[in-house]
């Protein structure tokens, strides 16, 4: 057996022994995700166990170095792990902005102390992070942020407002863009800082979305004291960190396009619409839409994998994350439009127990933000045109 085959066999055996039955199969709704943190909530005790077991092995962040609590796996091993997880239809052990966004940025820009302090907690799901980027006047034009950090010697005093801060009310810490030099050109006066959400002066206020859900907040900073040790990267060069982190965020949001859980969509549709005498989905137009979507989904999954391999082999610009973000988020919207069409009136129920309190409709509405959050589709297309296609004036 090759090393990789041995690894697969061992992984399979470990998962068989350690992945509880309750966390296998599709999630009922987005609400069931495990986010960890200081005050975690779990759908079942098995979900807690699953997070802890995977966290202890470092497999919530399989490719991070083992010295920071990660799995220390090679890319090929990580692929094997993912395929084995898919094989048993295991749910994600831990959803985490720390893993998807902050961690990779810390690995690249953080000091040794910062890595040692923050990364292992992230891997084990002990601290939950939120992202303080957008402001009322700075969305697509993110470098226009106004939140000020004034130098007070060994610390800064931060004042300002963020908006759209996902899960700010549940997060323990925030990674935040602040303006440290108001006189510099807008990209050059920004710093990237970390602070505890329980610091005096931090308050949040929920924003309800069209999906009726409210994990989003306005976040206010009123004379918030931030230690200088919590600066990531160079002072006034936080834009570099912000951009690198955005690339990871975009890949993560794009990856939602690749999630095809459980039962093939055509069969889901056949369950509700029935089949014709050839045992094909009754609605031929819908059948064609689903089949085309499945082709795109399969191609997108391979594109995700290929981009990962290209990045590893240094064959591609980091701006390629914009392609994944753009395509994946539009694909995910298409998928949910089709799920709603296939489900018909059953998916229109908003409050019944039977419909999981409208989970299909709420998930559908939530996906509309995929092409807005983390930079809109238009912004991704601008980046592709400028950085990957070198089009003029872009």
């Amino acid at each position: 057996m090759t090393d990789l085959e041995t690894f697969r066999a061992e992984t399979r055996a470990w998962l068989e022994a350690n992945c509880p039955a309750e966390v296998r199969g599709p999630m009922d709704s987005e609400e069931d995700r495990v986010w960890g943190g200081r005050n975690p909530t779990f759908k079942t005790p098995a979900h807690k166990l699953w997070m802890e077991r995977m966290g202890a092995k470092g497999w919530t962040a399989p490719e991070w170095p083992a010295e920071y609590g990660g799995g220390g796996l090679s890319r090929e091993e990580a692929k094997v792990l993912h395929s084995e997880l898919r094989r048993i239809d295991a749910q994600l052990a831990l959803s985490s902005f720390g893993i998807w966004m902050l961690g990779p940025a810390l690995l690249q820009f953080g000091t040794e102390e910062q890595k040692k302090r923050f990364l292992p907690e992230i891997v084990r799901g002990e601290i939950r992070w939120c992202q303080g980027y957008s402001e009322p006047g700075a969305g697509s034009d993110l470098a226009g942020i106004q939140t000020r950090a004034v130098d007070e010697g060994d610390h800064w005093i931060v004042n300002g407002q963020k908006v759209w801060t996902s899960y700010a009310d549940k997060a323990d810490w925030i990674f935040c863009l602040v303006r440290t030099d108001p006189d510099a050109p807008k990209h050059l006066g920004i710093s990237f800082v970390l602070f505890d959400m329980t610091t005096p002066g931090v308050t949040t206020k929920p924003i309800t979305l069209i999906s009726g859900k409210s994990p989003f907040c306005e976040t206010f900073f009123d004379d918030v004291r931030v230690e200088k040790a919590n600066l990531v990267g160079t002072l006034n060069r936080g834009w570099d960190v912000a951009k690198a982190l955005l690339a990871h965020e975009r890949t993560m949001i794009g990856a939602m396009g690749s999630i095809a859980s459980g039962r093939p969509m055509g069969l889901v549709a056949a369950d509700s619409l029935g089949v014709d005498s050839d045992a094909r989905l009754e609605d031929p137009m819908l059948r064609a839409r689903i089949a085309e979507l499945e082709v795109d989904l399969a191609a997108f999954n391979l594109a995700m994998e290929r981009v990962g391999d290209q990045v590893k082999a240094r064959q591609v610009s980091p701006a390629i994350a914009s392609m994944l973000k753009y395509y994946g988020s539009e694909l995910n919207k298409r998928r949910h439009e089709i799920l709603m069409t296939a489900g018909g009136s059953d998916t229109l129920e908003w409050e019944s127990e039977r419909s999981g309190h409208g989970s299909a409709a709420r998930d559908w509405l939530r996906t509309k933000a995929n092409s807005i959050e983390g930079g809109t589709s238009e912004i991704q297309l601008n980046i592709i045109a400028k950085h990957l296609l070198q089009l003029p004036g872009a």
Partner: protein
Amino acid sequence: MPLILTEEQTMLKEAADGFLSENAPVAHLRALRDSHDADGVSRDLWKAFGEMGFAGVIIPEEHGGSGLGAVEAGVMAEALGRTLTPSPFMGSGVLCASLLAEGGSTEQQGEWLPKIAAGEAILALALDEGPKHRPSAMTARAERSGNGFKLNGAKGFVLDGHIADALIVAAKTDDVTLSLFLVDPKTAGVEIERTVMVDAHNAARVTLTDVQVDADAMVGAIDQGEPLLQKALNLGRACAAAQLNGAGDQAFQITLEYLRTRKQFGKLIGEFQALQHRAAHLFSEIELSRAATLGALQRIDAGVDEKGLSASIAKSKAGRVAELAVQEAVQMHGGVGMTDEFDVGLYMKRVRVLNELFGDAGFHADRLARAQGY
């Protein structure tokens, strides 16, 4: 297996691109077309292809080939797509080579594989019958007769059929199963009509009327043609996807160049966001198509695409994407895109043909749907 080309495969790609852009660029296609060349393909070029080791890329070394795999065949196909070079590669080097290498008798292999690999022989697969690729609807028949078989039927879209040194004909040997026959085109009862296609590439209609062949003309065992054919078609479909990627991407590259240089309203047209966004969308589609195609080719090499679904995904995706690429190419070039003198129209025509080859995007999406049970 990482989804990128290995160093050796990258070298092969560079060699193929270099060879073709030097010896058979788009001007080569134009010359063949405008001179109404009797063959529509250059036999010298096919020989040179053999000498470079390109023609027999999938043929085992013991038969004079390069003994490489599907990914390498895809690399060649993509290069041919980029330069629009008419070549017996698909018919001979991919389809017939695969059929013979997998199912040919020792004599058949000994006779034909080295010649294909050397670029000395041109073979053609006679499979499709109606205007759409639908192997399951085949009506050509082979009935036992004398010490062999009598073939009857009509085939179309036979790549290089008009200049083939040998035909491989698919025919039903009973109501469900099919068999494959190696037929000398000079046999009595074989009629071949060249059909020059819209893209100035070559295909033929082949009519078989009581064509008598010996039993040893059979490729593979009787009634066992289906698996051989599926295997060859899988490879052919993935290679056609690669060829579509080559043609689509080249049309895109030409378009990008135009966006960077053409001025209107005192600006480069590439500065208009409406065009930038369409170009960026197309780029994303091309990336997916490439990933799907390389994925399929690698799976074929790894022997894990038995049902051919990865190849179907690749062919379906590549077909739609290349179509978008050529449509955008003509549109973004404005009036000049409609002129024969400009190349993008040639790409549009070629993509149309490649789309029909071995099943269009809908055919393959439908295959995927059926395989999943809906």
